[in-house]
């Protein structure tokens, strides 16, 4: 078996792992009861899946570059850039959605404890800033 074939098989395995976790994320969106637990499935699984899919693309790009195909290096660098963007924006978006949901009054289903209940953090800070001015 040549190097080219081995790299192809590794890339296929990485793609399979990534697809599995992405499917799991979709399944979690259907099965969980409320917005917070659904966000758990939606962020963690899709980010992890995206890491593996991007990893397989990077591997194929490195292979193309090794066999002197000029598109390989561009593919590799752009995919790494996309991966960094996903890693930064995905948890931030989930945090924004969770916070918006809690502030508009969605209660976590079956919650054992809710330390945040009845607190209006943002309002007190904006009032304090006005007082400082």
């Amino acid at each position, binding site marked *: 078996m040549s190097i080219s074939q081995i790299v192809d098989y590794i890339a296929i395995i990485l793609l399979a792992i990534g697809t599995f*976790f992405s499917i799991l994320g979709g*399944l979690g969106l259907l099965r969980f009861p409320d917005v917070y637990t659904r966000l758990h499935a939606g962020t963690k699984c899709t980010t*992890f899946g995206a890491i593996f899919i991007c990893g397989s693309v990077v591997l194929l790009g490195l292979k193309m570059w090794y066999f002197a195909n000029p598109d390989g290096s561009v593919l590799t*660098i752009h995919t790494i850039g996309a991966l960094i963007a996903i890693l930064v924006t995905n948890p931030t978006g*989930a945090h924004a959605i969770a916070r918006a949901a809690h502030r508009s009054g969605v209660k*976590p289903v079956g*919650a054992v404890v809710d*330390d945040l209940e009845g607190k209006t953090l943002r309002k007190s800070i904006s009032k304090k800033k006005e007082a400082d001015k």
Partner: protein
Amino acid sequence: MLAFIVTTLLCFVIYLLLTTGSGTEIVILNEDFLSWSYAEIILGLILSIIVGIIARKVFVKDNYRMANIVRWFRFLAYICGPFFVGMAKANIDVAYRVITGKINPGIVKISPNLKTDLGITMLANSITLTPGTLSVDIDEEKNDLYIHWINVKKEALKKKPVDCKYICGEFPKWIRRITE
């Protein structure tokens, strides 16, 4: 002035990374990799100077702590080591809960005692991507975080605010070493 130079340089480097392989006038390594045309270099310089003028006060807030290269190596070690392991565990945990449907959720408060904005952002993102936890809100005066926890342990609730080790393990120590 220093803020403007730092912002412009970073923009220029990112622009160059996104446009490699655009021509064969300037070649660093070989003709397929790390080669640029004059047009891309000139346009990139003009654009990064414009961005540097506009965004210098947004990008550099108070000091130049993060310009130290050692901190970036620590950051890389953190991403590849404890963060990736935590993320793999998180996915197996979510897989288990998706299949069995056993959940025991709640929102708890932790106080990690981080001082900088960058550090608390990094910790909140790490918490969202690691086992069973999702950061919901932040107390901006004391830098306390409110965490939605999918499987609340009873022994963690005895002390308030909840001990960091149940939620995020050793992450605050790593992030303190990176950002403070």
